[in-house]
């Protein structure tokens, strides 16, 4: 099989795998499309999502430094120019996203102070690692197919929910533009990958990057969902667990000779009873 045909078949398979990935078809996204979440819910959503938006250019810049040749650099630069706002009236994506946050009622500056869910941080760390410490093609797989082929499908569901919540079109430009731009980027990417990939090993590197990115993405959606739920139910299980863990820590200092397994079980149980007694 010629290199072009082999790559074309690989890319077709990879695109299908990405489009069917649980991260891209996460039930949280479908819930967004079907549930009348409020603007306050979307504020929570947006504040957790924003750091990813702000960092995408950083990932790309790191990847640019690692690009092996001018073809690869050229492709990355082309996408970066869009990310800097070439087709968005000079507004970069972070700026567009802040307009969305403003539409949610988030005051300027709050996006820089909000605590992030651990899975959001994990997503960022994973991607930083992929673009700085892994092979160039792994990073390319994560930012290329892992993003460009996934985002249009994910964002279509989000846009349905945003329109239902009553956002004006200009407030959700970040999302609507991404569906359009990432479809273009997807086409460029396919051309670029066709040139850059040479053989099974390269294909496997690209695939690995894409899958690692999507796994982090699935965890990310779960983290965002947890945050959307827990602002309405802040007194849920997590709070109990955190306090129980603290109590376990205290107990371990007092009773160091007890096995940790025993401490874990008894502590959680006793903490609850103690809390119930205090409240009751």
């Amino acid at each position: 099989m010629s290199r072009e045909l082999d790559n074309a078949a690989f890319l077709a398979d990879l695109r299908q795998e990405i489009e069917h990935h649980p991260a891209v078809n996460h039930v949280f996204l479908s819930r967004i499309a079907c549930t009348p979440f409020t603007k306050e819910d979307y504020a929570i959503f947006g504040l957790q999502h924003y750091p990813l938006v702000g960092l995408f250019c950083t990932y790309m810049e790191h990847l640019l430094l690692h690009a092996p040749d001018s073809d690869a650099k050229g492709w990355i630069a082309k996408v970066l120019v869009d990310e800097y706002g070439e087709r968005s009236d000079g507004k970069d994506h972070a700026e567009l996203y802040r307009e969305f946050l403003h539409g949610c009622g988030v005051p300027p500056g709050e996006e820089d102070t909000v605590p992030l869910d651990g899975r959001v941080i994990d997503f960022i760390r994973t991607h930083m690692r992929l673009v700085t410490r892994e092979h160039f093609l792994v990073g390319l797989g994560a930012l290329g197919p892992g993003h460009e082929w996934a985002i249009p499908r994910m964002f279509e569901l989000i846009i349905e929910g945003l329109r239902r919540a009553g956002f004006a079109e200009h407030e959700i430009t970040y999302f609507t533009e991404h569906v359009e731009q990432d479809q273009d980027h997807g086409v460029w990417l396919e051309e670029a990958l066709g040139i850059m990939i040479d053989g099974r090993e390269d294909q496997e590197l690209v695939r690995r990057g894409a899958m690692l990115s999507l796994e982090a993405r699935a965890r990310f959606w779960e983290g965002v969902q947890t945050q959307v739920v827990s602002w309405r139910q802040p007194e849920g299980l997590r709070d109990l667990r955190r306090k129980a863990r603290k109590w376990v820590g205290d107990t371990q200092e007092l009773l160091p000779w007890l096995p940790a397994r025993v401490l874990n079980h008894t502590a959680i149980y006793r903490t609850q009873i103690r809390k119930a007694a205090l409240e009751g």
Partner: protein
Amino acid sequence: MRILLVQPAPFEDRRLGLENTVWLSEPVSLTSIGAMAPDHDVEIVDMRLEDPRALSKKLVSFQPDIVGTTAMTTDAYQAKAVLRITRQLLPDALTLIGGHYPTFLPEEYREGFVDVIFKGEGELGFRELLDRWSADRQKQPGARQGRDCLLDIAGTEVRTEADAWVDSGKRPWARKLDELPAPNRGLIHRYQGQYFFLGAAPMASIFTSRGCSFDCNFCAIWEFYDRKTRFLSAKAIADRMEACDEPFLFFLDDNFLSRTDRLVQLCDEIEERGIKKHWMSQGRADFVAANPELIARLARNGLMGLLSGYETNDEDALAGLNKRSTLDANKKAAKILRDNGVISTGIFMVRPEFEEKDFDALYQYILDLRVAIPLVTVLTPLPGTEMWRKKRSELLTEDLRLFDLLHAVTETRLPREEFYKNYVRWKSVGHQSRKNYFDWKILWMRRSFYRKAAPNLPRMIWRRLRYERIQFDHKSYLRDEDGIIGVGSRARHRGAK
């Protein structure tokens, strides 16, 4: 043909509610539907017990030809989400929805990602749909199927290829429940042991009748079933009880206590066969009050818990709800159940027009009744009910997430914060009620039940403690309303703690 049936979760993952803390029953509607397709490859996914990625993984790995789901009011959006993601992943799969909510408000599901809406009881219509869909597929193997072959199945609305909806009218009810196959519980084998009611676990769920012949104006059951009740014979009930491995059963009937002759026959069957299971159900207080001997016999044959709508402490209000019962009947019923060691779970309602003194009076009434477990709800005009039709113009929201019987969806007389502060006062009423009900005599009388349930006690307490932190925090109700009703509190924090 491959068929995937999906039980939606009523809440987003991590959200706590009654269904993941107090009572999780088997998805009997889906096992009943699944039993109608013995010649096909059927699987059930219960999203209440799965992680959020399970659905898309199953859709991709199983590649079903048909995907069906069901919706009550509180999971109406989640059911839509199931079919929305199905359409995205498997554009050619036939998507079906049935259940109470689509029956009453089919227009809510006339969407591009829904192909067929079942109205009313689904079994016979589903069988007909399967026959037609398979026959059509055999005629044109490999071709993308149109839905024209489904257009006149009674009890359905079908979306045509031109995106129009064809309503084929009502389907007559299956005449006798005994003629329908038993629900295929094998389809949920992998979830066995995870269904529960308070400390009763593992718990199996059985339907022994469908419908209710009363016409309470806040209830949609009688409207769904045209105010008719159909019964499974006592023999069939005993067969199904014996077929369950679980020590605890829940009869999911809308009104289990409704025909004395059948209940006497059931006792005969249980005694003859020597069935030693503990079971719970739902039934009216006036029936209990009128049949004390029968209740005693049912208790000897395993009746361990009964959910009854005591509703209110006000005779006029009871009449206003069309309850057709009396406060005196409530009082007698609570005593009869206690005398027989049956855990009486009494459902009460606070009404939006309540003032502080009304809350006080209701809570005192609950304490006087000495029911074991009071559940206090907020009177809610549920879609499909007479009350909903009358009060629709007064609704502050139609967001179904608040139609969970725990939120006031109409204007309250008290300021909302005060209303919920008074509402959550039933925490102490609940604790006091339990203390009033349980004593050593009862525990000894029903010792075999408590011995079996005892290992579940820590898990039950764990669940209850988790949920009580939300259930009895008045601010949690205001947070739920925030941005929906518009008078709630604002979010205090927006990020991870």
